């Protein structure tokens, strides 16, 4: 059974259709790369998958672990194991990373009928996952993304992913704006969480990340449609000839 199955998906904002019929299937443990020119609809696909309210789905279905994803609220999708690393992470002034993560974890536990996580367990988890992405401990007290550098924001996304331990992670250009060392840290973080059951969609413009996080399949998205699919050989083809060929 597939983990995620997108069939004939059309979606847009207002009158503007952005996704024009997408079919995509992801099995457990698979890593899929989605590449494509600016404005192709990659972030729109991520937004629709995670349930961003501004977007309207006009046709098609999305099944996630056998459930109708389109009927689920964003928070319910997160509880079911979906996670997106934002291309542009949002600042939340006045809310500390600790408070943010504790509320997120306890909300999920509540949805499962569990009580709040024990203080000690939570701190241990925070420490462990911050170390995984080499985030300094003082970040725990900082307001979410406020005043973070571009690279720190991306690292914070992977930290949150590690904390929430999703079944399917969507990384929307998590590598953009990272220096070489940070790229390695983020890639190691992603690989550390990758198990035979866990899958990822890696959206990127660069082959560098895909050298560390090796995709099983590559999809080329252009003008709201998937115009080519294949293995890693597609990455080299894009690198040498760009997207015009498709």
């Amino acid at each position, binding site marked *: 059974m597939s983990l995620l199955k997108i069939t004939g998906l059309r979606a847009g904002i207002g009158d503007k259709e952005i996704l024009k019929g997408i079919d995509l299937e992801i099995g457990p443990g698979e890593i899929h790369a989605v590449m494509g020119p600016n404005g192709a609809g990659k972030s729109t696909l991520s937004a629709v998958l*995670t*349930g*961003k*309210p501004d977007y309207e789905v006009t046709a098609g279905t999305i099944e996630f672990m056998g459930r109708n994803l389109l009927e689920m*609220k*964003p*928070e319910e*999708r*997160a*509880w079911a194991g979906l*996670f*997106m690393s*934002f291309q542009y*992470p*949002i*600042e*939340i*002034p*006045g*809310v500390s990373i600790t*408070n*943010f*993560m504790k*509320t*997120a*974890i306890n*909300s*999920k536990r509540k*949805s499962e009928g569990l009580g709040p996580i024990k203080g000690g367990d939570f701190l241990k988890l925070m420490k462990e996952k911050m170390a995984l992405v080499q985030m300094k401990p003082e970040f725990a007290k900082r*307001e979410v993304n*406020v005043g973070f550098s571009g690279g720190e924001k991306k690292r914070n996304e992977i930290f*949150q992913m590690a904390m*929430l331990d999703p079944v399917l992670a969507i990384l929307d250009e998590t590598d953009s704006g990272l220096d070489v060392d940070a790229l390695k840290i983020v890639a190691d973080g992603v690989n550390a969480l990758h198990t035979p059951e866990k899958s990822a969609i890696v959206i990127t413009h660069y082959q560098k990340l895909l050298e560390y996080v090796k995709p099983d399949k590559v999809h080329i998205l252009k003008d709201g449609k998937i115009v080519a699919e294949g293995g890693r050989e597609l990455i080299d083809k894009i690198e040498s000839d760009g997207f015009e060929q498709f």
Partner: protein
Amino acid sequence: MDSNSSKNNAGRLSEPGRVHSRFASLAAAEYGLSSAAAPATHQPEKKIRLVSEAQGGMDRSCHQEVFTVGEGEHLDITFIVLPGTSAEIPVTVDITGPGAEVELKGIYLSSGTDNVTFDITMNHRVGGSISRQLFNGLATDKAKCAFNGKIIVAQDAQKTEAYQENHNIVLSDDATVDTKPQLEIYADDVKCSHGATVGKLNEDEQFYMRSRGIPEDEAKVLQMISFVAPVLAGIEDEDLTAKIENAIRSL
């Protein structure tokens, strides 16, 4: 006029929607700094004024409350207006001596058909004094809130510092908030600034939190708590903060 602070405020005002909560954290930092700068021997007594209709007195009765703050004196009052309260709160502060410091703050949480009006007059009669105002309000349902804040700096009141911020979040289509800052500055060597915003809770923040599994209502509560938090900075009263949090959850 201190051109820097005026410019800052203009910048904040030009970005409605995101401004208030971002401002909130800025304000927290500013307030933290300023109270740290006060000499330890002059720590003002922090007064909390819980405004409720049952108390009578100034509520709905338009009794002008006048505080006179003399040389080297400190005044620190925080007004708290909880949901279910309609009140007119006219407050005049007369600063009559150099070295006076005034902190006037407030939170108003208004719902139903609450009608809350602050009429503040900050009167710097003498120079070398400082006043800081920070009022943050949340209005929902059909509540009507108004903040009229006047700062008067007399001609001889040189080296006055007077700051005023009023930020509002409107949670429903039918609630209204009216904010009127008014500066009457007759001295030329002063630092004064004011900032007023009316906006909504930021939806991008909400989606970000929801995408991490925080339910929509809880996300809003986090936003509202962080919005009023700067007003409560330095107040360590757990009963009060719990009361405010409960009130926020009820909005």
